[in-house]
């Protein structure tokens, strides 16, 4: 079997390949999107936590020196 025959899919290339490509694309997207969101969430939570630590530190400084 040569490559041209393989890609022709017995004349059904326009139905078989879009099906497979669409499936592959959706599978990839559903892994990449949550992975990216996980990174963003960690980043966002880090800045949030830092800001709160700073705030708390400032407040305790103020209460110590009247």
């Amino acid at each position, binding site marked *: 079997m040569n490559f041209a025959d*393989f890609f022709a899919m017995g004349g059904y290339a326009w139905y078989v390949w*879009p*099906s*497979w490509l669409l*499936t592959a694309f959706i599978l990839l997207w*559903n892994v990449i999107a949550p992975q990216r969101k*996980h990174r963003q969430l960690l980043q966002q*939570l880090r800045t949030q936590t830092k800001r709160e630590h700073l705030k708390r530190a400032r407040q305790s400084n103020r209460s110590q020196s009247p």
Partner: protein
Amino acid sequence: MNVLLKFYHRLGSPREFYKISSALIPWLGWTSLILILLASYLGLVVAPSDYQQGDSYRIIYVHVPSAWLSMFIYVVLAVSAAIGLIWRMKMAYVIMICSAAPGAWFTMVALITGSLWGKPMWGTWWEWDARLTSELLLMFLYIGIIALYNSFDERRVAEKSTAILAIVGVINVPIIHYSVEWWNTLHQGSTVMRADGPAMDVRMLWPLLIMAFGFNLYYGLTLMQRARNQVLVQEARSSWVQSLVTEREQQ
């Protein structure tokens, strides 16, 4: 038994769930990738052409596992909803809501690849017959679940209302499965899940089964990814999340 009970309790705690899911994700990712690639090679190259449908039948390897999974995910979603309502388990609702999006995606894949298969074989992209219509209804159920969950500000209200919709909607799953028997449909009957065993050449059947297994692991993967994100959002104020994010920075 004690070990099982312990594991159940660990899974029920968001903190432990985050740890376990993070450890599972690479394993699920690589095994599902290997299985899907293997099944693709077997299905596209090794399996022979069909005597009736020629090479067009190779759409089966993406269409059928997606369709099976679209129903399987709904059952997982509904069972989690019931567990959440009955035992008030925190993580059950996380599994419920994080299954909705993958379920909707797989339903979409099943519908579109089915359409691409229907055109050359039946001569039409779409037909309002029982199988196709009930699968379309499943798509709307998933979308409805996502929309309902997001329409409440209070998370507990959202979880409960969504759980009730999810449980009512499970009636659609047996309707989809038996639609090809109960009604005269354009869609062919079951080839694999038959009482008298699969009616299919083994060289065609194996790639399908491997692909289905790979898709199932893949669902596990995307579910774990989404669920741990959801856990992070829900537990943002807890001390373990705060130490988790600051620990990471020091490394």
